[in-house]
């Protein structure tokens, strides 16, 4: 379990940045996806897929900057997960919860924090010695 403040800060910063960027992009594509006449469920499903893909691209960009500073897999995996989650959460948060002071970037950043917590929890469960049979 990482206890060095520099790396804990780096993990958090990377995930928040990736989440905010993914959220921002999800808002940007929302206008393009809102095609009149489309059934709402289809449009939402399609947008979620597009947002997820864009979020992962956002995650890759942030990872490319953050990895040399803060780590390799420990950055790449939570940041990519953040991109995937926050792409969807950013827009959905704004649409479902309603326009808020948080904004899509804020929802995305929140998605980043949650993704990091999920990775940290999974890491606590998985790390440690395995004596092979």
């Amino acid at each position, binding site marked *: 379990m990482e206890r060095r403040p520099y790396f804990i800060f780096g993990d958090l910063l990377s995930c928040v940045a990736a989440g905010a960027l993914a959220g921002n992009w999800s808002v940007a594509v929302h206008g393009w996806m809102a095609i009149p006449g489309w059934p709402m469920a289809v449009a939402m499903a399609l947008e979620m897929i597009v947002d997820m893909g864009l979020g992962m691209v956002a995650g890759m960009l942030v990872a490319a900057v953050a*990895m040399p500073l803060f780590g*390799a897999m420990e950055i790449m*995996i939570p940041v*990519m*997960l953040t991109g995937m989650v926050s792409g969807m959460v950013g827009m959905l948060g704004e649409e479902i919860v309603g326009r808020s002071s948080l904004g899509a970037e804020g929802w995305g950043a929140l998605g980043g924090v949650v993704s990091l917590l999920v990775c940290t929890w999974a890491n606590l469960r*998985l790390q440690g*010695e*395995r004596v092979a049979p």
Partner: protein
Amino acid sequence: MNRSEATRQRWDRTALFFDLMAGFGPEKRWFPFKRELFARMTGKVLFLAVGTGLDIPAFPPGLEIVGIDISPAMLEKARTRAERYPGKMTLQVMDVGAMTFADRSFDQVFTSCTFCSVPDPAEGLRSIRRVLKPGGWLRMFEHTGSDVFPFGSLLNFMNPLCRHIGPEMNRDTVARVREAGFRIHRVNHLYLDVVKTIEACLPAEGGER
């Protein structure tokens, strides 16, 4: 162009910016784990894919270590670090899958993020078996794929892009080591089930499976 040549060219290109990519964050993060693993070095040691020599400061002093790498450009950058090592360290350009050392030359073989990039892992491990003395140890610091959702899926998704830059993200190195006839002694997960140390020994009875 064969796979080894393609790998050499890729790492020659990567040598230009490798230290910038891996020399600070990843290295500082992993240094304590690597130092703990490398502290087990004894006897004549072969270090595979030594790269630009970022791992050399984590080696215990006073040993005889041979470092190889497929990329001359990476090794050129490693020379200064190797010269500073307080022991005997030599560097050679060599492919893990086609090592020219005599059979049973080394007491231990170490790797550090090597088998994510070796073109043919099975061939590489057979080659290690050949140069390792019976009863010798293979100790690895590696990142692998994950058996856990969603991490495994993420690594699979990233793999097509990452393999063009350097490493493969989803290899099952523990299984490959076992298949190569090594007895796995311990696997220590350092981050999720992705970053890990693997300690395996070659059976003493002639190295047979």
